[in-house]
C-alpha cells in the first residue's frame, strides 16, 4: 500500500497532464512584457495547450513570486533582471550560472529571444544638442538643472539608480514616475531625462536620443522565457522555438506598432509569429469593447461583493463581540486603522508570499480595507448609545441578546450602514489595483492602458469604475431608506 500510493499519484498526474495541460502565462506590466507574453501564449495555444493569460502583473517580484508559487507557469523576464533584482548578484553571470542558482526555486530560464533590451537614458534630441550632451557622464557632471525623473522600479533596483549613481557620481536623487507615462512627460517638457528600455518603440517617434553608457554600467538584459521547471518538455519546446530570432531593431518596430500603430498587442504578436513562418489563429482584435467591459465589470463586482460581505459579517460580529470592553474595542479599531494606513499596492505585495496572486489575495486586501469603517462605526454606535435608553432596556428585563437585537442594533443601523457605504466605495476604488496581482477587474484595462500608453484603454477602466462608485452611493441611499428603522434619523436629532 505504501508503495502503491505514490505510483497511483504519479499515474493520475501523468494522465491529467496529457489530457489537457493548462498553462498560465503571466506578463510584466509594460508594453514589451505584454507583447512577448502574448507571443508565448499564442505559441502554446498553437501547440494545443489550454492557455490562461494573467497579464499586467505589477513588477518583477510579483511575477517571480507568482511563478515560484505556481500561480503562473511562465512569463518573459530579462537576464539582467534575474541576476540583479531576483538573485541579488553584483556580477553578470552566464545563463547556465543563472539557471544553477534558479534551480533550487523550481524555475529556469529558456534560451533568449535574441535581442538585448537594456536600460538606457534618453532625452529630447534638440535639448541634447543645445547642451552638447551625448553620454551619461555628461549629465552627471554639470547640468544640475536637468530634471531627471526615472521609473519607480529603476529607482529601487541595485542595477538601477543606486548603482548608476555610484558608477557616475550622481549626487542628487531623482523623482519617480510610472514608466508608461515617462515618454509623454518627456514630450510635454515636464521632465528632461528618464530611463527607458533600449527596444522601446518611442525613441524615434518622440525625437529622442539615447545617451551613451560610457562607463558600461548597464548589464545585459536578454529577454527570455522564465518557466517553472515542472512544466512539460513539450511546452518548454514550444516556447523555446523562437529563441534567437528577434533583433533589437525588430523589437523596437514591433513595440512601436503597439504603442503608436494603434494595433493591439495580440495582433502584433501574431504578426511577429507570422514573420517567422509560424501561423497563429489568435490575431483577435475584437471590434467591440462591450464583452471585455462586461467581463471586467463582473469580475470587479465579484471581488468587491465578496470582500464587502466578509467585512460586513466580520466587522459587525467583531464590533458586537468587543464593544462592551473599552480596551478590546479600542485595540480592534486601532489595528483596523493601522491596516488602513498600509498603501494598497504595498498590502497587495505583502499578501503575495502568503496567498500568491490572483483573486484570493485581492479579496483579502479589499476585505482588510473594508473592515475599518464597518468595525469602527459599529463599535462607535454601540458604545455611544443614549444612556437612558440602555438603562431602561436593562431595567425592564431584556436579556443581553434581546437588548442587542431589539434595541442596540436597530439604533446602530444608520451608523453601520454608513460604514458599509464608505467601505463599498473604498473597495470599488481600490479593486482597480487588483489587476497588478492578476485578479482582473476594471483595473485590467487601466494597467494595460498605462503600460501601452493607451488613454482609451485607461478610460475603459476608469470611467466604469467611477460610474460604479457613483451608482453604489446612490443605491446605498435607497438601502438606507429601507434598512434604517422609520423615523430613526429624525429621532436621533431630536435629543432629550
Amino acid at each position, binding site marked *: 500500500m505504501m508503495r502503491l500510493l505514490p505510483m497511483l499519484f504519479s499515474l493520475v498526474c501523468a494522465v491529467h497532464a496529457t489530457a489537457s495541460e493548462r498553462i498560465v502565462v503571466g506578463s510584466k506590466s509594460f508594453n514589451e512584457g505584454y507583447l512577448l507574453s502574448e507571443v508565448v501564449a499564442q505559441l502554446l495555444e498553437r501547440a494545443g495547450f489550454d492557455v490562461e493569460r494573467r497579464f499586467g502583473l505589477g513588477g518583477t517580484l510579483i511575477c517571480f513570486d507568482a511563478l515560484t508559487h505556481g500561480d503562473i507557469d511562465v512569463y518573459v523576464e530579462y537576464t539582467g533582471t534575474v541576476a540583479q533584482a531576483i538573485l541579488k548578484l553584483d556580477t553578470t553571470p552566464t545563463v547556465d550560472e543563472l539557471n544553477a542558482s534558479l534551480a533550487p526555486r523550481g524555475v529556469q530560464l529558456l534560451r533568449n529571444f535574441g535581442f538585448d533590451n537594456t536600460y538606457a537614458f534618453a532625452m529630447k534630441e534638440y535639448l541634447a544638442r543645445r547642451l552638447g550632451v551625448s553620454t551619461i557622464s555628461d549629465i552627471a557632471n554639470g547640468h544640475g538643472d536637468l530634471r531627471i525623473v526615472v521609473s519607480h522600479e529603476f529607482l529601487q533596483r541595485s542595477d538601477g539608480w543606486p548603482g548608476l549613481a555610484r558608477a557616475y557620481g550622481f549626487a542628487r536623487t531623482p523623482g519617480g514616475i510610472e514608466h508608461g507615462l515617462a515618454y509623454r512627460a518627456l514630450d510635454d517638457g515636464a521632465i528632461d531625462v528618464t530611463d527607458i528600455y533600449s527596444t522601446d518603440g518611442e525613441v524615434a517617434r518622440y525625437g529622442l536620443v539615447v545617451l551613451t553608457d560610457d562607463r558600461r554600467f548597464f548589464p545585459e538584459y536578454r529577454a527570455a522565457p522564465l518557466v517553472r521547471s515542472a512544466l512539460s518538455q513539450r511546452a518548454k519546446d514550444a516556447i523555446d522555438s523562437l529563441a534567437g530570432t528577434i533583433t533589437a531593431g525588430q523589437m523596437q518596430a514591433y513595440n512601436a506598432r503597439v504603442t503608436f500603430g494603434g494595433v493591439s498587442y495580440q495582433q502584433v504578436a501574431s504578426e511577429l509569429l507570422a514573420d517567422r513562418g509560424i501561423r497563429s489563429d489568435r490575431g483577435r482584435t475584437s471590434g467591440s469593447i462591450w464583452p471585455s467591459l462586461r467581463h471586467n465589470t463582473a469580475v470587479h463586482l465579484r471581488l468587491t461583493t465578496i470582500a464587502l460581505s466578509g467585512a460586513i459579517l466580520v466587522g459587525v460580529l467583531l464590533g458586537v463581540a468587543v464593544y462592551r470592553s473599552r480596551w478590546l474595542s479600542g485595540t480592534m479599531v486601532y489595528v483596523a486603522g493601522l491596516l488602513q494606513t498600509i498603501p494598497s499596492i504595498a498590502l497587495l505585495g505583502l499578501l503575495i508570499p502568503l496567498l500568491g496572486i490572483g483573486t484570493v489575495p485581492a479579496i483579502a486586501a479589499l476585505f482588510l480595507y473594508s473592515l475599518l469603517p464597518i468595525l469602527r462605526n459599529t463599535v462607535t454606535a454601540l458604545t455611544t448609545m443614549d444612556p437612558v435608553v440602555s*438603562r431602561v432596556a436593562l431595567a425592564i428585563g431584556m436579556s443581553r441578546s434581546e437588548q442587542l437585537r*431589539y434595541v442596540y442594533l436597530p439604533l446602530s443601523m444608520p451608523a453601520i450602514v454608513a460604514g458599509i457605504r464608505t467601505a463599498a466605495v473604498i473597495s470599488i476604488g481600490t479593486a482597480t489595483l487588483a489587476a497588478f496581482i492578476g485578479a482582473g477587474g476594471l483595473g485590467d484595462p487601466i494597467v494595460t492602458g498605462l503600460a501601452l500608453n493607451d488613454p482609451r484603454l485607461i478610460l475603459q477602466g476608469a470611467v466604469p469604475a467611477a460610474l460604479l462608485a457613483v451608482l453604489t452611493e446612490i443605491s446605498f441611499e435607497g438601502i438606507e431608506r429601507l434598512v434604517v428603522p422609520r423615523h430613526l434619523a429624525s429621532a436621533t436629532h431630536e435629543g432629550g
Partner: protein
Amino acid sequence: MNGAAVELVDVGKRFGARWVLESIDLRVPEGETTAVVGESGSGKSTLLQLINAVYSADRGAVRVLGEPIPTIDLHLWRRSIGYAIQGAGLFPHLDVRDNVTLLARLAGREPDFVEQRFRTLTELMGLGRDLERRFPHVLSGGERQRVGLCRALMLQPKLLLLDEPFSALDPIVRRDLYGLFDRLRARESVSTVMVTHDPREALRLARHVVVLRGGRVQQSGSIDAVLREPANEYVRSLWSDGFA
C-alpha cells in the same frame, strides 16, 4: 413583620473608592407608595437601581417581595418589577404600541392578553388610539411619560420603581399626570417606590417617605409621622423650603 415589598439591611454601595450609599436600613411597605426624597447626589437613584439589581450592593442584603435577588436569569426576574424613568426613555425606533408591548411579546405572552392589557393601560392613561402608531419623537413630554408608565405596568408587576418620572414636565402637565397616576393606583394594586427631588410631589403621591442625604437615611416612616416629628433640622426644612 409581614408585607415588606422591599427590605434593605445595612446596604452600602460604592463607585470606586466613594461610598454613595452607606449603611441603608429600609423597609418599603407592600401595596403602597413610598417616596425616596433627596437632592441630587443624595444616592436616591442608585438606591432604586439596587432594588432591580441594575447595580449590586457592595455590602448588606436586599430582599424584594420577600426573596433575595436571584443570581441567575436576572432579566427574567426584572420583568416582575416595573420601571419608569425621567424623560420616559422610550425606544426611538419603535412606535407607541411596540414600546409598550415589546417585552410582553419577548416574554411570550398570548396576543390576546397583550392586546387587552395594552388597551386597558392606554385608556387608563388617557392615550388615544390615534397615538398607537406614532413614534416617540412626535409625542409631547407628557404623552411620552404616560407611554413610559404603560410600558412599566404592561407585565402586571408586583413592584413599580419610578425614577423622577414627572420631573421634566411643566406644572400643568404634571398635575394632570398626578391625577392619572391616582387613577392607575386605584385600579392596579402595585407597591411603588418613587424617587423624587420634590418634597411636594412626595406629599401629593406617597404615604410613606424616606429622606436621603449624602448617602444616609435621615428619616423614614409615614408622611404624617415625618411631618409631625422631623428627626432633624434638615428634614424639617424640607417641608417648609422644598429644594432650591
